[in-house]
């Protein structure tokens, strides 16, 4: 029988700072840890350090892309200087409303940044794994970067319409017409390789 879960409302005092550390969904005030969400209390006891008190809601409220988060996005338009994308997933959580992001030309690759051509790295309709490097200011969108081996194009369709297979870090091949197209390909995770 699972122990009864204790629910709390925002503003409720959970414990004092000596008894527990503030986790997600809480804030500290006047030496007390108070809840910031309406949800269930969760206490993780670590050996040595103080137990971390946090409030969890099972239906994850909409996450916002944070700096350093890996996001899955879809390219909607490209330019000679940048590619505009729609952010669809943060980590593995789908977003209910899409956010817009930009991948600048100098953030596509880590090496030889000035020789990069956006047309040879992304095409509209590609699904790309990228990392958020900046939240952007007033006018601009989220800034993303694919300057790592594990980031880049994951799914792309060839001009013939078939889903392409990655051959190297910069090429993908269409299984139907066997033509090669240039993309900045993400390194395939070892568990997905069939050898």
């Amino acid at each position, binding site marked *: 029988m699972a122990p009864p879960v204790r629910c709390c409302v925002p503003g409720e005092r959970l414990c004092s700072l000596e008894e527990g550390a503030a986790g997600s969904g809480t804030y500290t005030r006047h030496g007390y840890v108070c809840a910031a969400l*309406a949800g269930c209390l969760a206490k993780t006891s670590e050996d040595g350090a103080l137990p971390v008190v946090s409030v969890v809601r099972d239906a994850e409220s909409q996450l916002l892309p944070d700096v350093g988060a890996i996001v899955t996005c879809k390219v909607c338009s490209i330019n000679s200087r940048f590619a505009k994308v729609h952010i669809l997933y943060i980590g593995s959580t789908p977003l209910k409303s899409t956010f817009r992001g930009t991948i600048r030309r100098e953030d596509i690759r880590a090496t030889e940044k000035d020789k990069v051509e956006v047309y040879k790295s992304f095409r509209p309709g590609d699904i790309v794994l990228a990392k958020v490097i900046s939240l952007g200011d007033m006018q601009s969108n989220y800034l993303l970067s694919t300057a790592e081996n594990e980031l880049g194009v994951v799914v792309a369709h060839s001009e013939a319409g078939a889903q392409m297979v990655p051959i190297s870090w910069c090429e993908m091949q269409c299984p139907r017409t066997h033509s090669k197209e240039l993309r900045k390909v993400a390194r395939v995770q070892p568990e997905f390789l069939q050898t």
Partner: protein
Amino acid sequence: MALDHRRVPGPEESQAPLLYAVPGQAAPEAPGREAAALRPLLARAGLLSQAEGSASLELGGGTKVLCAVRGPREAAEGRGRLLCEFRRAPFSGRGARPRPGPAAAARERELGLALQEALAPAVRLARYPRARLELTALVLQDGGSALAAALSAAALALADAGVEMFDLVVGCGLCRAPGPGGAWLLQPSEAEERAAAARLTVALMPGLNQVAGLLGSGQGGPPESWAQAVRLGLEGCQRLYPLLRRSLLRSAERRAAEADPPQS
């Protein structure tokens, strides 16, 4: 003149209905109410499936408010924003006549800003950079103290949506009866509000014990009278807080029970 067969002809003569009223059966005098009596409250969170968070609040005597929160959505600005809208349904008022246009729209905008001012200190907007939260409060039936009910319902809806907050906001309305010695009444009914000389709405964050919003108008009398009214209002908010807290806990428990079904 030819008879118009498409319409039902009314009587040729008509008289005011008051002629037929039996004397002595005039509307019974409302019994003098206790100044600090609170109306029965029914609050429920988490009823709409299409909005991220929602809450409905009903006060005994016919005030019904429904509040829905959408977001966080993407915003163009750098910091998070809370946008509040206060709307009255066309059937919420007493009479059948629709309200006149621009004056009512300006009044609703003012109340929407008052809502935003009162809720902004309670929401942790710093946790939502580049996002906007849209809150809509719809008054389904106005039986007095609609703004105060909307404030409490809005705080419940925000908490239900999973928006990080410092504390809940509880709203309480007051009004002062006309006349030099008029006393302040808590949670006035619609008739009392209409006849009042001054109205006040107080919003309190009970856990932090901070006043979140204050909106008043009218001739309240000397400043001590306003101070006394604010104290009365804050006391009313403290008494309403346990009911709102219980309804939020119930909805949180319902969510938790739905997420992992009990094993047995």
